[in-house]
């Protein structure tokens, strides 16, 4: 291991005013093949009412992080270290009963595939009403009325009747709307949306994304929006955190990260993605290789085996020393700030057209 890993998340001071504050989070799973370090030294803050977009590919640790916030990981195989502070309350060590009071109430989640994420055995109305009864102590009747109201709000036509339907009687887009209604039923302060539109068609995705944005304005929730799609993140996020192999490698405001990215991996993502208005004459510039196994991640910078800019860093720092991610606008890369800027402007941006 490298010398600096121990301090990886330490230099980031706790955001005093932050609504959600994750500090040096490590999550690892015990598997038959060994220990998978799914999240390895992650820190970030989220303010009230803001949207944090987490972008990364499969295995980057973005989903695991958010399951851990709600304590939904399997405790038998999982080790969690570090701090997750929600309004100052430590969640990693919180008792199950305390977490239950938060889930669906203060913090709600939306999952990727609404067909499998909703129970086939109960009506949509009941599934929406349940958390309202639990957290607000509402009667069955009140909760049902609330469920119908929420279904109407997310755009289910004829909500009174549709509440009695089962999820399989809904179309894909309607199911995701029902899922959103369920998440917002207790007016949460934080909404975690894990690839909520990946399973949907593009015109339906556009409806759902706009709906989420409009509802956020009305409900004032903070949102953590997880996706692999840079277009979606550009549409949704105020701030963006790019994750790779279990850690954050770049963060900043959406404009900063997308228009002046600083990390070779972010450059790679932008370069490898065809856009609806990019130059079709130029071939895509893929990132070579594939994401590392988290059973045995590469030493130093996790990205160095796929990085084409390694040579511009003096010595073999990329292999021996894990770059740190600073606070605010930052990227975890050994290139100097000046190098990052000139490489982007001179070599990356022209290719983006």
């Amino acid at each position, binding site marked *: 291991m490298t010398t600096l890993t121990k301090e990886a998340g330490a230099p980031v001071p706790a955001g005093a005013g932050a609504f959600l504050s994750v500090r040096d989070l490590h999550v690892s799973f015990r598997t038959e093949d060994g220990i998978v370090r799914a999240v390895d030294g992650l820190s970030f803050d989220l303010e009230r009412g803001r949207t944090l977009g987490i972008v990364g590919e499969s295995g980057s640790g973005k989903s695991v992080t958010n399951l851990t916030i709600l304590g939904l990981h399997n405790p038998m195989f999982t080790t969690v270290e570090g701090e997750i502070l929600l309004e100052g309350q430590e969640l990693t060590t919180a008792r199950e009963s305390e977490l239950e009071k938060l889930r669906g109430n203060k913090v709600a989640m939306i999952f990727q595939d609404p067909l499998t994420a909703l129970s086939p055995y109960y009506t949509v109305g009941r599934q929406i009403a349940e958390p309202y009864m639990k957290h607000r102590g509402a009667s069955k009747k009140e909760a049902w009325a609330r469920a119908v109201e929420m279904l109407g709000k997310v755009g289910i036509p004829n909500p009174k009747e549709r509440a009695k339907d089962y999820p399989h009687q809904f179309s894909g887009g309607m199911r995701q709307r029902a899922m959103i209604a369920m998440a917002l039923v207790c007016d949460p302060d934080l909404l975690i949306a894990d690839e909520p539109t990946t399973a949907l068609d593009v015109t339906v995705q556009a*409806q759902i994304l706009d709906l989420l944005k409009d509802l956020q304005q009305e409900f004032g929730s903070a949102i953590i929006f997880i996706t692999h799609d840079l277009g979606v993140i550009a549409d949704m996020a105020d701030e963006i955190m790019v994750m790779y192999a279990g850690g954050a490698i770049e963060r900043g405001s959406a404009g900063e990260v997308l228009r002046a990215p600083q990390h070779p991996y972010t450059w790679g993502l932008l370069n490898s993605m065809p856009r609806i208005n990019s130059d079709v004459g130029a071939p895509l510039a893929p990132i070579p290789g594939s994401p590392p196994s988290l059973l045995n991640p590469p030493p130093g910078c996790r990205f160095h085996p796929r990085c084409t800019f390694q040579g511009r860093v003096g010595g073999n720092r990329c292999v021996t020393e894990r770059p740190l991610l600073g606070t605010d606008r930052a990227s975890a890369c050994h290139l100097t700030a000046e190098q990052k800027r000139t490489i982007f402007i001179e070599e990356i941006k022209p290719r983006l057209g």
Partner: protein
Amino acid sequence: MTEDLVLPAPRQAATAGEPLLKVEGLTKHFPVKGGFPIRRTVGHVQAVDGIDLTVHVGESFGLVGESGCGKSTTGRLITRLLEPTSGSISYRGQDITHASRKQIAPIRSEIQMIFQDPYSSLNPRQTVGKIISGPMEINGINPEGGREKRVRELLEIVGLNPEHYNRFPHEFSGGQRQRIGVARALALEPKLIVADEPVSALDVSIQAQVVNLLQKVQDELGIAFLFIAHDLAVVRHFSQRVAVMYLGKVIEVGDRESIYTRPRHPYTHALLSAVPEVNLADENAAPRERIRLAGDVPSPINPPSGCRFRTRCWKAQDKCATEEPPLIRLSGNHEGHLTACHFPEDPTIEARAEDIVLDPALAALEESLEEAGDGD
């Protein structure tokens, strides 16, 4: 059918621009069983309903649309994995619509398919060498220097280590498996590859590798592609001509430029406007139009009469319900740009004076937010 159909098609290098595959009125209806007390066919899923397409030699033709539009079924009909209900498919002038296995054998090798899922489309019990040489064995092709040598060449072409000849699919990553699928498709030196969502199961950084590989194959080997995908940006990047499908019909077809910057069909407008965009340029780039449809695509079992898009269209009138719009070249359209619409939109994708928001919940929310904004 005459005997000469069985003869292998000549393998001379065809000139580009010449039609390679011509599809006319292609239709596939799947029966829906139901009824009481005796189960019978009560309806049909009109998966593909009378489409016309032409793919030219060496051309990359894109087929886009949302789930249930029939794009994958079309691919399977063309590769004859499904039997068409009606219509015709001709390959280099030969009618292969209902050709028997024997008749189609020489053509089969010229039309190959690449599938979406690199995990389930490769036999886990066969080595990579066996998977790639399988098509050669079945078709009795013995390349110069032997099949193994050819497989190694193919592995090299698709960017895999030829030494991995004896490995099994599970030893490869998703992107590498898709490369194996490409190598298998190339084994018979095809003239046309039908690629059904070839990159949608892959991670973003890997997608580009496979897209580039396919593009290289197309350029260097002159293979025509029918590229089926739901991702409009990928299709745009890969295809010279594009057809947009909706509920089993081609509603607009044309060159890339026409479809992506001068679309006429309202559905094409809606699709393009729904694509989330990374605006890398400055803030002052011309904003795109914003169209938000209501609800999902209707069921293909009982599709709307007339124009199938009319139930979700903001321009629909009575005529749209009674009369199916023909796929024709509208005035002002470029050559080969055909649109099936009675009331086409202007050929631009720039923002309109007012957004089109058909979704009632969105409209209501936005109105109330606007009012709140005004009150401040």
